[in-house]
């Protein structure tokens, strides 16, 4: 699992769950996502992300989601019992 954080929000991706359908890549309004060489979800750049959560709710496989970090900055992100990023 990878976490990308800006301020108090973080975008988390779990390539292990990804089936590579590309729905999130297609629907991202900021075009920050892509499928990597092995056809799994990856983040191009996190800065433009507006945390709209469209990718999260469109993903059929729960492989990408947004979380509110407990503390801003580089400290660990809480992931609702799904492990610490």
């Amino acid at each position, binding site marked *: 699992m990878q976490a990308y954080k800006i301020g108090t929000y973080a975008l988390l991706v779990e390539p292990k*769950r990804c*089936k*590579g*359908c*590309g*729905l999130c*890549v*297609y*629907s991202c309004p900021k075009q920050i996502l892509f499928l990597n060489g092995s056809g799994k979800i990856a983040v191009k750049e996190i800065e433009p992300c507006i945390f*709209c*959560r*469209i990718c*999260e*709710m*469109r993903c*059929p*496989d*729960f*492989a990408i*989601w*947004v*979380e509110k970090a407990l503390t801003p900055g580089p400290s660990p992100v809480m992931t*609702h019992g799904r492990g610490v990023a």
Partner: protein
Amino acid sequence: MPNTKVLAIREEREKRFTGAHALCAGCGTPIAVRAVLNAIEEPVVVVTATGCLEVATTRYPTTAWNVPWLHVAFENAAAVASGIESAYRVLRRRGVLSKEIRFVAFAGDGGTYDIGLQALSGALERGHRFLYVCCDNEAYMNTGNQRSGATPIAAQTTTAPVGEESFGKIQRRKDLTEIVVAHRIPYVAQASIGDWYDLASKVRKAISQDGPSFINVMTSCPRGWGHDSNQTVKITRLAIETCFWPLFEVEDGRWTLNYIPEEKLPVEMWLRPQKRFAHLFEPQEKTELLREIQKHVDRDWERLLQRCEVSAGASV
């Protein structure tokens, strides 16, 4: 109102449906299921008819459901839901249960249009308080794309093949939403994963009714329809824009149109990206058949406008 963020925040509190399923890449059904379950605030009990959703989400010994979940057979999702609802009412009357619980039945188009129709009809007529969601992907996709009552005319399926003598399914699809409206239940709606806000709002309305409610949701199937897996939502959106799958609701017999496209696209725009309709365009275009399909869509749309008492060219 239930926009994307509201649904996501609801899911953060309690995951009702999880990713531990084997549905194909780009499947539209889990998108619909997530939107439906997250639009409901109260605790839910889910009943599922046989279909992709049931088979792929409950492979022994795992399950993708984090709510009480029940499955009996292909044809009786509605009957099972009505049984649970009756038991719940008795337990409430006796004071054993005090919680408000909502009941949701999920079924595919095979389990609703064809096999489960009589169970659904009975449950609606008896007036049980439950929400029935039909995830309509327009064929029996679970067993490998056989034609169902929901398959549109000219679509290629394994049991309606394309050849020199045939152009896919010969018959038109039946209008299940209208059949359900004829039961005079409090709430019937047609929705799509192509318009999320609309789907979630309809679920909220449906679940608050004191009686049966029904939502027919179009969920695309990338493998059966033959389009790229990232086009799932786009294809269902095109079905709305071409008026093939209009969004409307019927509350106590009052018809309301929820979306009128600014410019009604030709139905060809929806047919062309799908491989199951490829024979309409290659090797040569079947203009006659295309014109007939467009005529069907136009006639249904006109009739719907009349029902909703909207004049053509108006916007909602």
